[in-house]
């Protein structure tokens, strides 16, 4: 008998395959995540003239990113940990990071789908059209912004073990972000809150997406928002990874 160590690339391919199949079988909840931002785009048709295309698109993408990170990713991690799925994978000769990396790749694809969905719906229903360069830059910014919410989700599964508690917490944080974010941005909640929201994960992510959509609009504030976004991701990742336990006991 000889000891056979599978190559990391083979392991990654296998893990990815299983994670994508799992995601596909859960397509009902996946579609929900994709549909909400698309519906907002369509229903905001009349606001496009007043708020501008980039505002509407970036808002809807940010809503989608929040849902992916806080609901999709976080809940699936909490559930699989509770069921012992991670422990079983971990006793195989695979690096622990590959298990998480595979999960994250699935979520990155989700981010691309949400962004595409919002762009298409914006184009067909609201007649919002942006230069090609804007679309490509916004794709990248959506990935960067999505990382904030994925790492925030990591903090939540790091702090909370029980999957039901995780689920109710993520729902609460999700609605808080969406409500305060959207209304704060619109100035409904007053100037101070508006200022806080601007530099919150919601506002910063929204800003980088919005400003990247219109190539001329990127200014010093956009760059600061980008740095703030990186900062949030760093802090959340470090805390989330440090606090994370692979088993729920």
């Amino acid at each position, binding site marked *: *008998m000889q*000891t*056979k*160590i*599978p*190559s990391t690339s*083979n*392991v990654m*391919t*296998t*893990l990815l*395959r*299983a994670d994508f*199949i*799992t995601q596909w*079988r*859960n397509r009902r909840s996946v579609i929900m995540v994709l549909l909400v931002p698309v519906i907002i785009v369509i229903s905001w048709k009349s606001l496009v003239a007043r708020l501008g295309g980039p505002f509407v698109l970036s808002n809807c993408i940010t809503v989608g990113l929040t849902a992916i990170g806080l609901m999709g990713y976080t809940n699936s991690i909490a559930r*699989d940990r509770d*069921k*012992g*799925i991670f*422990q*079983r*994978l*971990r*006793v*195989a*000769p*695979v690096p622990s990071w590959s298990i998480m990396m595979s999960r994250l790749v699935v979520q990155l694809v989700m981010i691309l789908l949400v962004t595409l969905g919002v762009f298409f719906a914006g184009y067909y229903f609201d007649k919002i059209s942006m230069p090609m360069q804007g679309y490509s830059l916004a794709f990248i910014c959506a990935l960067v912004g999505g990382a904030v919410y994925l790492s925030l989700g990591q903090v939540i599964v790091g702090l909370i073990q029980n999957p039901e508690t995780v689920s109710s917490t993520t729902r609460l944080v999700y609605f808080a972000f969406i409500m305060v974010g959207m209304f704060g941005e619109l100035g409904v909640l007053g100037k101070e809150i508006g200022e806080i929201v601007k530099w919150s994960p919601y506002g910063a992510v929204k800003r980088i997406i919005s400003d990247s959509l219109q190539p001329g609009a990127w200014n010093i504030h956009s760059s600061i928002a980008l740095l703030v976004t990186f900062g949030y991701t760093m802090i959340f990742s470090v805390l989330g990874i440090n606090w994370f336990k*692979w*088993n729920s006991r």
Partner: protein
Amino acid sequence: MNDNGQATILQVEQLNVYYDTFHAVRNVSFEVRAGEIFGLLGPNGAGKTSTLAAIEGLLQPRSGKIHVAGYDIAEKKKYARASMGVQLQATSFQPELLVPEIIQLYAGVYGVEMNKQKVDSILKEIELSSASSKRFGQLSGGQQQRVSLVIAMIHNPELVLLDEPTTGLDPQSRRQLWERMENMRSKKHGILVTTHSMEEAESVCDRIAIIDHGQIIAIDEPQRLIDLHRDDPKVISVSRRGRITLEDVFIGLTGKQIRS
């Protein structure tokens, strides 16, 4: 190699596991040899699963040395893990995956070549051919257990760790598992199994260790344990049919008290 000329597949020396301040495994030492089925017996909470978790590298022991197929789990974790097959007490697979997909996943993770025919023959072996289009979450408890067991042996590992493998199995599946364990034994694999069934320990284990409160209180062949403790008053007092069984020895040594 040990005194009997058999290779040692698993060596555990002076293992100590703590959960914060709780001392769950205390100075546990034993070995599993090639071609041996070794049983780990003990009341609920005795420390069986914790001992296995340390061997699997799932938890960091406070002290002690563990070698799997010659690899130190602390230093050559990947190699040690590649040399063992594991069935966890609370294993689950993604409930959305079909049984063939789970087999494919773990074949890939262990670097085992797998094709449709091989998957089919595995399904047939565990009598789950008709369930091949079912999701793991739709299988009955015993069927799930069968999947978990076949995955534990999928890469033909030198050491197999089974944590209460027969819990929830019907008599037919239990017999089949025993046969599979004996088959592995004849091919010189080492098998470490925990169980609450004294019948199982007596009929398949070559040697057993009884563990209580994190400590091993006896290691021997089942029949020798019975012979050794035949005249122990504590064992005789719990015997029910005049004849001393392994269960009498077990209860005599670990006490009648149910564990909290």
